[in-house]
Protein backbone atom coordinates (compact mmCIF):
# COMPACT_ATOMS: atom_id res chain seq x y z
CA UNK A 1 0.00 0.00 0.00
CA UNK A 2 1.30 3.44 -0.89
CA UNK A 3 1.83 5.23 2.37
CA UNK A 4 1.73 8.70 0.82
CA UNK A 5 -1.88 8.20 -0.10
CA UNK A 6 -2.96 8.42 3.49
CA UNK A 7 -4.18 11.86 4.34
CA UNK A 8 -4.89 10.82 7.91
CA UNK A 9 -2.82 8.09 9.46
CA UNK A 10 -3.10 7.35 13.17
CA UNK A 11 -1.02 4.55 14.60
CA UNK A 12 -1.39 3.12 18.09
CA UNK A 13 -3.03 6.26 19.42
CA UNK A 14 -4.08 6.04 23.06
CA UNK A 15 -5.90 8.63 25.07
CA UNK A 16 -7.35 8.82 28.55
CA UNK A 17 -9.06 11.70 30.32
CA UNK A 18 -7.22 12.61 33.49
CA UNK A 19 -9.91 11.21 35.74
CA UNK A 20 -10.92 8.00 34.06
CA UNK A 21 -10.44 4.87 32.07
CA UNK A 22 -8.76 5.00 28.66
CA UNK A 23 -10.99 6.26 25.87
CA UNK A 24 -8.77 5.30 22.96
CA UNK A 25 -6.55 2.25 23.23
CA UNK A 26 -3.87 1.79 20.57
CA UNK A 27 -6.28 2.94 17.93
CA UNK A 28 -5.36 2.78 14.25
CA UNK A 29 -7.08 4.81 11.58
CA UNK A 30 -6.15 5.38 7.97
CA UNK A 31 -8.00 7.59 5.54
CA UNK A 32 -6.97 7.86 1.90
CA UNK A 33 -7.68 10.82 -0.33
CA UNK A 34 -11.22 10.64 -1.65
CA UNK A 35 -12.36 8.21 1.01
CA UNK A 36 -15.35 8.78 3.23
CA UNK A 37 -15.49 6.95 6.53
CA UNK A 38 -18.49 6.66 8.78
CA UNK A 39 -18.03 6.14 12.52
CA UNK A 40 -20.62 4.62 14.78
CA UNK A 41 -20.40 3.47 18.34
CA UNK A 42 -22.07 3.82 21.70
CA UNK A 43 -22.13 7.14 23.53
CA UNK A 44 -18.86 7.76 25.26
CA UNK A 45 -16.95 5.39 23.00
CA UNK A 46 -14.56 8.18 22.02
CA UNK A 47 -15.82 9.26 18.60
CA UNK A 48 -15.69 12.97 19.39
CA UNK A 49 -12.41 12.51 21.25
CA UNK A 50 -10.95 10.90 18.15
CA UNK A 51 -11.95 13.84 15.92
CA UNK A 52 -10.49 16.28 18.45
CA UNK A 53 -7.24 14.34 18.51
CA UNK A 54 -6.96 14.50 14.72
CA UNK A 55 -7.01 18.31 14.79
CA UNK A 56 -4.86 18.55 17.91
CA UNK A 57 -7.42 19.91 20.35
CA UNK A 58 -6.59 16.95 22.54
CA UNK A 59 -3.15 15.42 22.74
CA UNK A 60 -2.86 11.63 22.81
CA UNK A 61 -0.92 10.03 25.63
CA UNK A 62 0.91 7.86 23.12
CA UNK A 63 0.90 6.99 19.45
CA UNK A 64 1.67 8.72 16.21
CA UNK A 65 -0.46 11.15 14.20
CA UNK A 66 0.40 11.72 10.59
CA UNK A 67 -1.65 14.15 8.54
CA UNK A 68 -0.92 14.70 4.84
CA UNK A 69 2.21 12.62 5.25
CA UNK A 70 3.63 14.81 8.03
CA UNK A 71 3.86 13.86 11.65
CA UNK A 72 1.92 16.29 13.81
CA UNK A 73 2.88 16.56 17.43
CA UNK A 74 3.14 20.12 18.65
CA UNK A 75 0.56 22.92 18.59
CA UNK A 76 2.35 24.59 15.66
CA UNK A 77 2.05 21.40 13.60
CA UNK A 78 -1.66 21.33 14.22
CA UNK A 79 -2.16 24.99 13.29
CA UNK A 80 -1.35 24.00 9.73
CA UNK A 81 -3.48 20.87 10.01
CA UNK A 82 -6.58 22.77 11.08
CA UNK A 83 -6.57 24.81 7.92
CA UNK A 84 -6.74 21.68 5.77
CA UNK A 85 -8.87 19.55 8.06
CA UNK A 86 -12.20 21.17 8.87
CA UNK A 87 -14.03 20.08 12.01
CA UNK A 88 -17.76 20.61 12.34
CA UNK A 89 -18.70 20.69 16.02
CA UNK A 90 -21.60 18.88 17.58
CA UNK A 91 -23.15 22.05 18.94
CA UNK A 92 -23.44 24.92 16.47
CA UNK A 93 -23.61 27.40 19.34
CA UNK A 94 -19.99 26.55 20.10
CA UNK A 95 -18.97 27.33 16.57
CA UNK A 96 -20.86 30.53 15.87
CA UNK A 97 -19.69 33.30 18.12
CA UNK A 98 -19.86 36.38 15.96
CA UNK A 99 -22.89 38.62 16.00
CA UNK A 100 -23.61 38.24 12.30
CA UNK A 101 -23.39 35.31 9.89
CA UNK A 102 -21.08 37.11 7.45
CA UNK A 103 -18.56 37.97 10.14
CA UNK A 104 -18.60 34.46 11.47
CA UNK A 105 -17.97 32.87 8.08
CA UNK A 106 -15.25 35.44 7.33
CA UNK A 107 -13.46 34.74 10.64
CA UNK A 108 -11.53 31.72 9.30
CA UNK A 109 -10.38 33.36 6.05
CA UNK A 110 -9.28 36.47 7.99
CA UNK A 111 -7.23 34.28 10.30
CA UNK A 112 -5.62 32.74 7.24
CA UNK A 113 -4.38 36.19 6.31
CA UNK A 114 -6.93 37.13 3.67
CA UNK A 115 -7.79 40.80 3.24
CA UNK A 116 -11.17 42.12 4.34
CA UNK A 117 -12.50 42.15 0.79
CA UNK A 118 -11.21 38.66 0.01
CA UNK A 119 -12.67 37.31 3.25
CA UNK A 120 -15.97 38.99 2.52
CA UNK A 121 -16.01 37.50 -0.99
CA UNK A 122 -15.11 34.00 0.22
CA UNK A 123 -17.80 34.17 2.89
CA UNK A 124 -20.37 35.34 0.36
CA UNK A 125 -19.49 32.56 -2.09
CA UNK A 126 -19.55 29.88 0.59
CA UNK A 127 -22.96 30.98 1.79
CA UNK A 128 -24.18 31.01 -1.81
CA UNK A 129 -22.95 27.45 -2.40
CA UNK A 130 -24.81 26.25 0.69
CA UNK A 131 -27.98 27.99 -0.41
CA UNK A 132 -27.64 30.59 2.35
CA UNK A 133 -27.44 33.67 0.14
CA UNK A 134 -29.09 36.59 1.91
CA UNK A 135 -28.07 35.30 5.36
CA UNK A 136 -25.06 37.65 5.59
CA UNK A 137 -26.55 40.11 8.06
CA UNK A 138 -28.66 37.64 10.01
CA UNK A 139 -27.86 37.52 13.71
CA UNK A 140 -26.33 34.16 14.57
CA UNK A 141 -28.17 33.53 17.81
CA UNK A 142 -31.52 34.14 16.17
CA UNK A 143 -31.07 31.40 13.54
CA UNK A 144 -33.04 28.18 13.77
CA UNK A 145 -31.26 24.94 14.68
CA UNK A 146 -31.02 23.84 11.06
CA UNK A 147 -29.80 27.22 9.87
CA UNK A 148 -27.19 27.28 12.61
CA UNK A 149 -25.89 23.91 11.48
CA UNK A 150 -25.69 25.04 7.86
CA UNK A 151 -23.93 28.27 8.80
CA UNK A 152 -21.46 26.30 10.96
CA UNK A 153 -20.75 24.16 7.94
CA UNK A 154 -20.19 27.34 5.95
CA UNK A 155 -17.68 28.61 8.52
CA UNK A 156 -15.74 25.37 8.13
CA UNK A 157 -15.93 25.28 4.33
CA UNK A 158 -14.81 28.91 4.06
CA UNK A 159 -11.37 27.74 5.23
CA UNK A 160 -11.10 25.64 2.06
CA UNK A 161 -10.45 22.35 3.86
CA UNK A 162 -9.36 19.18 2.05
CA UNK A 163 -10.89 16.85 4.61
CA UNK A 164 -13.98 17.29 6.74
CA UNK A 165 -14.57 15.83 10.18
CA UNK A 166 -18.26 15.93 10.94
CA UNK A 167 -19.49 15.29 14.46
CA UNK A 168 -23.17 14.32 14.37
CA UNK A 169 -23.96 16.74 11.55
CA UNK A 170 -27.67 15.97 11.39
CA UNK A 171 -28.50 15.18 15.01
CA UNK A 172 -31.70 16.94 16.01
CA UNK A 173 -32.47 18.25 12.53
CA UNK A 174 -35.69 17.73 10.62
CA UNK A 175 -35.75 15.59 7.50
CA UNK A 176 -35.66 18.46 5.03
CA UNK A 177 -32.52 19.97 6.60
CA UNK A 178 -31.00 16.52 6.97
CA UNK A 179 -31.50 15.89 3.27
CA UNK A 180 -30.01 19.28 2.48
CA UNK A 181 -26.87 18.41 4.44
CA UNK A 182 -26.63 14.99 2.79
CA UNK A 183 -26.92 16.62 -0.64
CA UNK A 184 -24.29 19.19 0.25
CA UNK A 185 -21.90 16.46 1.42
CA UNK A 186 -22.43 14.51 -1.77
CA UNK A 187 -21.91 17.59 -3.95
CA UNK A 188 -18.77 18.67 -2.12
CA UNK A 189 -17.05 15.41 -2.84
CA UNK A 190 -14.51 15.98 -0.06
CA UNK A 191 -12.91 13.19 1.91
CA UNK A 192 -14.57 13.05 5.26
CA UNK A 193 -15.01 11.23 8.52
CA UNK A 194 -18.59 11.34 9.68
CA UNK A 195 -19.72 10.47 13.18
CA UNK A 196 -23.39 9.64 13.41
CA UNK A 197 -25.95 7.30 14.86
CA UNK A 198 -27.99 7.65 11.70
CA UNK A 199 -27.26 4.61 9.56
CA UNK A 200 -29.14 5.92 6.53
CA UNK A 201 -26.99 9.03 6.52
CA UNK A 202 -23.83 6.94 6.77
CA UNK A 203 -24.97 4.62 3.99
CA UNK A 204 -25.57 7.57 1.70
CA UNK A 205 -22.46 9.59 2.41
CA UNK A 206 -19.68 7.16 3.32
CA UNK A 207 -17.80 4.33 1.63
CA UNK A 208 -17.25 2.23 4.67
CA UNK A 209 -18.21 2.29 8.29
CA UNK A 210 -16.09 1.83 11.36
CA UNK A 211 -17.52 0.69 14.62
CA UNK A 212 -15.88 2.14 17.70
CA UNK A 213 -15.68 -0.12 20.70
CA UNK A 214 -13.15 -0.63 23.48
CA UNK A 215 -11.07 2.30 22.27
CA UNK A 216 -10.53 0.83 18.83
CA UNK A 217 -12.17 0.97 15.43
CA UNK A 218 -13.25 -2.21 13.73
CA UNK A 219 -13.92 -1.56 10.08
CA UNK A 220 -16.60 -3.43 8.29
CA UNK A 221 -15.63 -2.89 4.67
CA UNK A 222 -17.98 -5.31 3.17
CA UNK A 223 -21.41 -3.88 2.77
CA UNK A 224 -24.14 -6.39 3.30
CA UNK A 225 -27.26 -5.37 1.45
CA UNK A 226 -30.37 -6.20 3.36
CA UNK A 227 -33.86 -4.86 3.66
CA UNK A 228 -35.93 -4.41 6.72
CA UNK A 229 -39.54 -5.27 6.37
CA UNK A 230 -41.54 -3.92 9.20
CA UNK A 231 -45.05 -2.97 10.05
CA UNK A 232 -46.19 -0.49 12.58
CA UNK A 233 -48.66 2.34 13.13
CA UNK A 234 -48.15 5.62 11.27
CA UNK A 235 -46.18 3.66 8.66
CA UNK A 236 -47.59 5.64 5.77
CA UNK A 237 -45.64 8.73 6.82
CA UNK A 238 -41.97 8.83 5.92
CA UNK A 239 -40.02 8.17 9.06
CA UNK A 240 -36.68 7.42 10.57
CA UNK A 241 -35.68 4.62 12.84
CA UNK A 242 -33.38 4.67 15.78
CA UNK A 243 -29.71 3.78 15.48
CA UNK A 244 -28.95 0.26 14.31
CA UNK A 245 -26.23 -1.72 15.97
CA UNK A 246 -23.77 -2.83 13.36
CA UNK A 247 -22.70 -5.87 15.30
CA UNK A 248 -26.23 -7.16 15.31
CA UNK A 249 -26.91 -7.87 11.66
CA UNK A 250 -30.54 -8.14 10.87
Amino acid at each position, binding site marked *: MDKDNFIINLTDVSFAYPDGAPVLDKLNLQLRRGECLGLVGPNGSGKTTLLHIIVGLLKPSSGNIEIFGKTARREEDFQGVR*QRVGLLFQDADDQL*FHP*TVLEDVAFGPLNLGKSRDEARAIAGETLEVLGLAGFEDRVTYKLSGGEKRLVSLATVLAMGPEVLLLDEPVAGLDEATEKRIIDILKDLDLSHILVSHNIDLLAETTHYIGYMIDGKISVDEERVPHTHVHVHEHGRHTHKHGPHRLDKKS
Partner: protein
Amino acid sequence: MMVEGFADGDSLIHRLDPRVKIIVAALFSTIVAVSDRFRVLLPALVIGLILVMLSTVPVKKLFMRLVPVNGFIIFLWLFLPFTFDGEPLFAVGPLVATNEGVYHATRITLKSNAIVVVLIALVASTPVFALGHALHELRIPNKIVHLFFFTYRYIHVMYREYLRLVNAMKIRNFRPATNIHTYRTFAYLVGMLLVKSHERAKRVYNAMLCRGFRGRFYSLSRFSLKPIDVISFILMLTVILGLAVLEWTRITL
Protein backbone atom coordinates in the same frame (compact mmCIF):
# COMPACT_ATOMS: atom_id res chain seq x y z
CA MET B 1 -34.90 38.15 26.42
CA MET B 2 -35.24 41.83 25.71
CA VAL B 3 -32.01 43.08 24.26
CA GLU B 4 -31.64 45.65 21.53
CA GLY B 5 -35.26 46.67 21.90
CA PHE B 6 -34.65 50.10 20.41
CA ALA B 7 -32.06 49.30 17.77
CA ASP B 8 -34.42 48.49 14.93
CA GLY B 9 -35.83 51.95 14.31
CA ASP B 10 -34.95 54.25 11.47
CA SER B 11 -34.47 57.86 12.50
CA LEU B 12 -31.85 60.54 12.24
CA ILE B 13 -30.38 59.26 15.51
CA HIS B 14 -30.38 55.64 14.34
CA ARG B 15 -28.48 56.58 11.21
CA LEU B 16 -25.77 58.56 13.01
CA ASP B 17 -22.29 57.10 13.08
CA PRO B 18 -22.05 54.96 16.24
CA ARG B 19 -18.68 56.47 17.08
CA VAL B 20 -20.24 59.92 17.29
CA LYS B 21 -23.03 58.57 19.48
CA ILE B 22 -20.63 56.84 21.86
CA ILE B 23 -18.42 59.90 22.31
CA VAL B 24 -21.36 62.25 22.77
CA ALA B 25 -23.07 59.92 25.25
CA ALA B 26 -19.84 59.48 27.24
CA LEU B 27 -19.07 63.22 27.41
CA PHE B 28 -22.65 64.14 28.22
CA SER B 29 -22.90 61.56 31.00
CA THR B 30 -19.61 62.68 32.53
CA ILE B 31 -20.50 66.37 32.55
CA VAL B 32 -23.99 65.76 33.90
CA ALA B 33 -22.72 63.35 36.55
CA VAL B 34 -20.31 65.90 38.00
CA SER B 35 -22.63 68.90 37.70
CA ASP B 36 -24.59 70.21 40.67
CA ARG B 37 -26.41 73.32 39.50
CA PHE B 38 -30.03 73.08 38.58
CA ARG B 39 -29.49 75.40 35.63
CA VAL B 40 -27.31 72.62 34.17
CA LEU B 41 -29.32 69.62 35.22
CA LEU B 42 -32.70 70.85 34.01
CA PRO B 43 -31.50 71.71 30.50
CA ALA B 44 -29.65 68.37 30.45
CA LEU B 45 -32.87 66.49 31.06
CA VAL B 46 -34.61 68.56 28.39
CA ILE B 47 -31.80 67.83 25.91
CA GLY B 48 -32.10 64.15 26.73
CA LEU B 49 -35.83 64.22 26.12
CA ILE B 50 -35.34 66.02 22.80
CA LEU B 51 -32.83 63.37 21.71
CA VAL B 52 -35.16 60.60 22.73
CA MET B 53 -37.96 62.20 20.75
CA LEU B 54 -35.69 62.48 17.72
CA SER B 55 -34.87 58.79 18.04
CA THR B 56 -38.62 57.99 17.88
CA VAL B 57 -38.49 55.60 20.80
CA PRO B 58 -42.07 54.66 21.74
CA VAL B 59 -43.05 56.52 24.91
CA LYS B 60 -44.35 53.40 26.59
CA LYS B 61 -41.12 51.48 26.07
CA LEU B 62 -39.12 54.47 27.25
CA PHE B 63 -41.21 54.62 30.38
CA MET B 64 -40.70 50.89 30.99
CA ARG B 65 -36.95 51.42 30.88
CA LEU B 66 -37.10 54.33 33.27
CA VAL B 67 -39.07 52.41 35.88
CA PRO B 68 -36.15 50.39 37.29
CA VAL B 69 -33.92 53.47 37.48
CA ASN B 70 -36.53 55.46 39.33
CA GLY B 71 -37.26 52.51 41.55
CA PHE B 72 -33.87 53.07 43.14
CA ILE B 73 -34.44 56.78 43.27
CA ILE B 74 -37.61 56.34 45.31
CA PHE B 75 -35.45 54.90 48.07
CA LEU B 76 -33.21 57.95 47.89
CA TRP B 77 -36.28 60.14 48.36
CA LEU B 78 -37.20 58.12 51.42
CA PHE B 79 -33.85 58.63 53.09
CA LEU B 80 -31.95 61.61 51.72
CA PRO B 81 -34.27 64.46 52.82
CA PHE B 82 -34.10 63.22 56.40
CA THR B 83 -30.41 62.57 56.65
CA PHE B 84 -28.98 65.88 55.42
CA ASP B 85 -28.18 68.71 57.77
CA GLY B 86 -29.65 72.08 56.92
CA GLU B 87 -32.76 74.24 56.92
CA PRO B 88 -35.68 72.23 58.26
CA LEU B 89 -38.48 71.92 55.71
CA PHE B 90 -41.04 69.73 57.41
CA ALA B 91 -41.14 67.06 60.06
CA VAL B 92 -42.64 63.60 60.17
CA GLY B 93 -42.75 62.66 63.81
CA PRO B 94 -39.17 62.82 65.09
CA LEU B 95 -37.77 62.93 61.52
CA VAL B 96 -36.94 66.32 60.06
CA ALA B 97 -36.62 66.83 56.33
CA THR B 98 -34.22 69.55 55.21
CA ASN B 99 -34.15 71.81 52.19
CA GLU B 100 -30.66 70.59 51.34
CA GLY B 101 -31.76 66.97 51.48
CA VAL B 102 -34.64 67.63 49.12
CA TYR B 103 -32.37 69.55 46.73
CA HIS B 104 -29.88 66.74 46.77
CA ALA B 105 -32.50 64.10 46.01
CA THR B 106 -33.86 66.28 43.19
CA ARG B 107 -30.37 66.64 41.73
CA ILE B 108 -29.81 62.89 41.73
CA THR B 109 -33.23 62.33 40.16
CA LEU B 110 -32.55 64.82 37.38
CA LYS B 111 -29.02 63.56 36.76
CA SER B 112 -29.84 59.90 36.55
CA ASN B 113 -32.88 60.41 34.36
CA ALA B 114 -31.01 62.75 32.01
CA ILE B 115 -28.14 60.26 31.65
CA VAL B 116 -30.38 57.24 31.19
CA VAL B 117 -32.56 59.04 28.66
CA VAL B 118 -29.52 60.07 26.63
CA LEU B 119 -28.12 56.54 26.79
CA ILE B 120 -31.43 55.18 25.53
CA ALA B 121 -31.51 57.72 22.71
CA LEU B 122 -27.91 57.29 21.60
CA VAL B 123 -26.60 53.92 22.73
CA ALA B 124 -29.69 51.73 22.82
CA SER B 125 -30.55 52.91 19.31
CA THR B 126 -27.37 51.27 18.01
CA PRO B 127 -27.20 47.56 17.20
CA VAL B 128 -24.79 45.84 19.56
CA PHE B 129 -22.35 44.75 16.92
CA ALA B 130 -22.17 48.27 15.49
CA LEU B 131 -21.38 49.47 19.01
CA GLY B 132 -18.64 46.87 19.35
CA HIS B 133 -17.04 47.80 16.06
CA ALA B 134 -17.32 51.48 16.90
CA LEU B 135 -15.53 50.86 20.22
CA HIS B 136 -12.86 49.05 18.25
CA GLU B 137 -12.53 52.01 15.86
CA LEU B 138 -12.26 54.32 18.86
CA ARG B 139 -9.14 52.37 19.89
CA ILE B 140 -10.73 50.77 22.92
CA PRO B 141 -8.46 47.82 23.80
CA ASN B 142 -9.25 44.68 21.79
CA LYS B 143 -9.76 42.61 24.90
CA ILE B 144 -12.56 44.81 26.15
CA VAL B 145 -14.28 44.92 22.77
CA HIS B 146 -14.20 41.15 22.49
CA LEU B 147 -15.32 40.66 26.03
CA PHE B 148 -18.26 42.84 25.04
CA PHE B 149 -18.98 40.80 21.90
CA PHE B 150 -18.72 37.44 23.63
CA THR B 151 -20.87 38.55 26.52
CA TYR B 152 -23.52 39.65 24.09
CA ARG B 153 -23.28 36.48 22.01
CA TYR B 154 -23.41 34.05 24.90
CA ILE B 155 -25.78 35.82 27.20
CA HIS B 156 -28.58 34.28 25.13
CA VAL B 157 -27.07 30.83 25.27
CA MET B 158 -26.61 31.11 29.02
CA TYR B 159 -30.13 32.41 29.35
CA ARG B 160 -31.48 29.42 27.45
CA GLU B 161 -29.41 27.11 29.60
CA TYR B 162 -30.80 28.85 32.66
CA LEU B 163 -34.36 28.38 31.37
CA ARG B 164 -33.68 24.69 30.71
CA LEU B 165 -32.45 24.24 34.25
CA VAL B 166 -35.39 26.15 35.67
CA ASN B 167 -37.80 24.05 33.63
CA ALA B 168 -36.07 20.90 34.82
CA MET B 169 -36.69 22.12 38.35
CA LYS B 170 -40.30 23.03 37.63
CA ILE B 171 -41.30 19.72 36.11
CA ARG B 172 -40.14 18.06 39.27
CA ASN B 173 -42.41 20.32 41.23
CA PHE B 174 -39.84 22.64 42.73
CA ARG B 175 -41.44 25.59 44.47
CA PRO B 176 -39.14 28.19 45.96
CA ALA B 177 -39.71 28.79 49.65
CA THR B 178 -37.69 30.13 52.53
CA ASN B 179 -35.81 27.01 53.47
CA ILE B 180 -32.48 25.29 53.10
CA HIS B 181 -33.75 23.13 50.26
CA THR B 182 -34.55 26.22 48.19
CA TYR B 183 -31.22 27.89 48.93
CA ARG B 184 -29.32 24.76 48.09
CA THR B 185 -31.25 24.31 44.86
CA PHE B 186 -30.57 27.88 43.77
CA ALA B 187 -26.92 27.48 44.69
CA TYR B 188 -26.78 24.37 42.50
CA LEU B 189 -28.49 26.28 39.71
CA VAL B 190 -25.91 29.06 39.81
CA GLY B 191 -23.11 26.54 40.19
CA MET B 192 -24.30 24.54 37.20
CA LEU B 193 -24.54 27.70 35.11
CA LEU B 194 -20.94 28.57 36.02
CA VAL B 195 -19.67 25.09 35.22
CA LYS B 196 -21.63 24.99 31.99
CA SER B 197 -20.37 28.37 30.86
CA HIS B 198 -16.83 27.31 31.64
CA GLU B 199 -17.28 24.17 29.53
CA ARG B 200 -18.90 26.21 26.80
CA ALA B 201 -16.00 28.66 26.83
CA LYS B 202 -13.57 25.78 26.34
CA ARG B 203 -15.56 24.43 23.38
CA VAL B 204 -15.89 27.85 21.77
CA TYR B 205 -12.16 28.40 22.14
CA ASN B 206 -11.51 25.02 20.53
CA ALA B 207 -13.81 25.89 17.65
CA MET B 208 -11.88 29.12 17.23
CA LEU B 209 -8.57 27.28 17.19
CA CYS B 210 -9.96 25.04 14.46
CA ARG B 211 -10.55 28.07 12.35
CA GLY B 212 -7.03 29.32 12.66
CA PHE B 213 -7.45 31.72 15.59
CA ARG B 214 -4.09 32.92 16.89
CA GLY B 215 -5.12 35.59 19.32
CA ARG B 216 -5.97 38.34 16.86
CA PHE B 217 -9.38 39.51 15.82
CA TYR B 218 -10.06 41.21 12.54
CA SER B 219 -13.04 43.37 11.85
CA LEU B 220 -14.94 43.44 8.57
CA SER B 221 -16.70 46.73 8.98
CA ARG B 222 -15.50 50.20 8.23
CA PHE B 223 -17.29 53.35 9.25
CA SER B 224 -17.33 56.53 7.27
CA LEU B 225 -18.26 59.91 8.66
CA LYS B 226 -21.01 61.62 6.71
CA PRO B 227 -21.58 65.40 6.82
CA ILE B 228 -24.64 64.88 9.04
CA ASP B 229 -22.43 63.00 11.54
CA VAL B 230 -19.91 65.83 11.68
CA ILE B 231 -22.64 68.47 12.03
CA SER B 232 -24.41 66.55 14.81
CA PHE B 233 -21.12 65.95 16.55
CA ILE B 234 -20.16 69.62 16.54
CA LEU B 235 -23.66 70.63 17.60
CA MET B 236 -23.72 68.19 20.52
CA LEU B 237 -20.21 69.14 21.59
CA THR B 238 -21.28 72.78 21.68
CA VAL B 239 -24.29 71.91 23.80
CA ILE B 240 -22.18 69.86 26.22
CA LEU B 241 -19.63 72.64 26.39
CA GLY B 242 -22.49 75.03 27.13
CA LEU B 243 -23.54 72.84 30.05
CA ALA B 244 -19.97 72.79 31.34
CA VAL B 245 -19.75 76.59 31.10
CA LEU B 246 -23.01 76.94 33.04
CA GLU B 247 -21.68 74.66 35.74
CA TRP B 248 -18.20 76.07 36.18
CA THR B 249 -18.52 79.81 35.64
CA ARG B 250 -20.10 82.53 37.68
CA ILE B 251 -22.25 83.83 34.85
CA THR B 252 -25.76 84.31 36.12
CA LEU B 253 -28.60 84.20 33.67
